[in-house]
């Protein structure tokens, strides 16, 4: 797995005038979503400064970092929800802001952090809205739409709940409904901003297992921002650690999650052992707690 250093070396040697070279190489590479020298800011506050990374296709990538390190902002930048102050995001080799919104919506699906379900909207209706990028004003409900929605509901095990209002569902079910909408959208890439926050443990596992299932059956590229490092280790193929709006390190959890990294990125002294259930790294904070 190429580390970020070699990629940065490539990017650093590139001037804007030769961006086409990079574009064509990006197209040739297997990475569909690439950020180059991306800078994102809210008004005058720079959150992400000149950040470059590549999202490996067909894998689950998790972005981790401390609170307010810029990971959600980064995700929004990748999803074209924010206009970058500098740099560019490439989707299939094309700068993403040059691609039409509708076309982006057929390739990238996003589950934002606190999605608003209008009062009384049923699960079926919510999932149906995911078909919007494929519809036209005269073709509002084709056979493909019907099939896609049915399939999405089956994948997320919500077929029986299709007529229930979304706001009557439990937290886990609601997240599944939003993910079902993204599935119905039929995008090969799925971006999720903290999909498991505010869910209890069982529901968190429900959601993450679903994402893993989507990745394994369809080969969908999943990019998620998670705040739980252990959860990230369990499910991610590829981990990106962010600190202060910059990439600290990327790679597989085994490569990346070390005591030194956690101390650096999270400011926390920990011990890292092997998870007895999955074999992935397990992070144990050192500290007070009840010492027996």
């Amino acid at each position, binding site marked *: 797995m190429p580390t970020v250093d070699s990629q940065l070396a490539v990017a650093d040697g590139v001037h804007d005038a030769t961006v086409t070279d990079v574009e064509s190489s990006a197209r040739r590479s297997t990475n569909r979503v690439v950020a180059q020298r991306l800078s994102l800011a809210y008004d005058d506050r720079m959150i992400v400064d000149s950040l470059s990374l590549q999202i490996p296709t067909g894998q689950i990538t998790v972005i981790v970092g401390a609170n307010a390190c810029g990971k959600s902002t980064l995700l929004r930048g990748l999803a074209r929800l924010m206009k970058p102050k500098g740099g560019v995001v490439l989707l299939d080799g094309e700068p993403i802001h040059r691609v039409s919104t509708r076309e982006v919506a057929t390739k990238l699906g996003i589950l934002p952090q606190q999605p608003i379900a209008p009062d009384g909207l049923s699960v079926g209706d919510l999932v149906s809205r995911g078909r919007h990028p494929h519809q036209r004003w005269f073709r509002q409900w*084709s056979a493909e739409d019907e099939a896609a929605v049915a399939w999405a509901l089956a994948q997320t095990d919500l077929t029986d709940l299709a007529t229930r209002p979304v706001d009557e569902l439990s937290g886990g079910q609601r997240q599944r409904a939003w993910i079902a909408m993204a599935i119905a959208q039929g995008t090969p890439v799925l971006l999720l901003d903290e999909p498991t926050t505010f869910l209890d443990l069982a529901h968190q596992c429900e959601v993450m297992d679903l994402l893993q299932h989507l990745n394994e059956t369809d080969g969908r590229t999943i990019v998620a921002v998670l705040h739980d490092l252990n959860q990230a280790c369990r499910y991610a193929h590829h981990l990106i650690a962010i600190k202060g709006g910059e990439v600290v390190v990327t790679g597989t959890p085994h490569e990346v999650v070390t005591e030194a990294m956690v101390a650096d990125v999270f400011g926390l002294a920990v011990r890292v052992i092997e998870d007895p259930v999955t074999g992935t790294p397990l992070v144990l904070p050192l500290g007070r707690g009840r010492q027996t």
Partner: protein
Amino acid sequence: MRHRPGPVVSRRYLVRVGPVSTRIDVRTVGVSAVLVGAIFLLFCWTISVGDFPIPIGEVIATLLGGGSEDSRFVVGELRLPRALVGALVGAAFGLSGAIFQTIARNPLASPDIIGVTQGASLAAVSVIVLAGSGDLLGGVASIGVPIAALVGGVAAALLVYVLSYRRGLVGYRLVLIGIGIGAVMTAAIQYLLTRATIYEAARATVWLTGSLNGRGWGHVRPVAVGLVVLVPLTLVLGRQLRLLEMGDDAAKGLGVRVERSRLALILCAVGLAALATASAGPVAFVAFFAPVIARRVVGPGQVALVPSALMGSAVVLASDLIARRILAPTELPVGIITSIIGAPYLLYLLWTANTIGRSG
């Protein structure tokens, strides 16, 4: 993986003809049909009553082209245009209010929040006060007032938009500035009322209450043309409106060009409100509670654009009927009755929501 087709969403009937397809919500269609029927009934009723009562049969005959000389005059020159203006203005306000409430995600939103009705009112009152009270000028004023109101309404909304645009439109900033500019214009109106002669002030106050008195074919045409243009446009944009409801991020993720859609929808809503205010004055409240009632009747989860428009029409027609007859032979302005009907209903909604126990 085998796909299992079949209706997964209830209450929807699929209509498909070749590549063209759409889904229709049964309850919305039902409610709309009932409202259309109610509008037709109210229409005939309001045409038939008055100082010169005409039986309903005669009304229908006259509308179809027959009828006596007298009926044709009363219906054709006086009552029909008035009723038409009422229905069209109600529809425009209802639709405009529905758009604003959905975009602002707030049931208290109305065209007032962007200052369009205040701008239209200020322009109209200016013309009334400055045009004087002579007969010739009075004639000019009767044409000039609607035009001024239309220009004033659109200009005010544009001003608010320009003032609040800063690298994109942020919802609360638009509303905040809209309310601020609206308050200035209201103060200006009150100031003009103190500078005018009592006659002008009285005329202005009548206009400000919202009235269908003396509305003729000249008032019907602009509103009709406006509706013919704006209503289809709004309905096409309705799909995007549904997605905007889910938040900017989710809408963008689904391929909606959020800024552009919102601007287009706001322009439609402003146009509708400005036209309606120009024709009948700011008929208080219709834009506010017609969509609220429509949504309650149609059921949750719908944007309910068409029912809101139809409900607006029905409310204005019913209010005008009451306004004309309740203190006969004095005709009250319709704006007074819409408030008297609407406000208690709103309070009733509040009361029942409380007793059911839903949080406010």
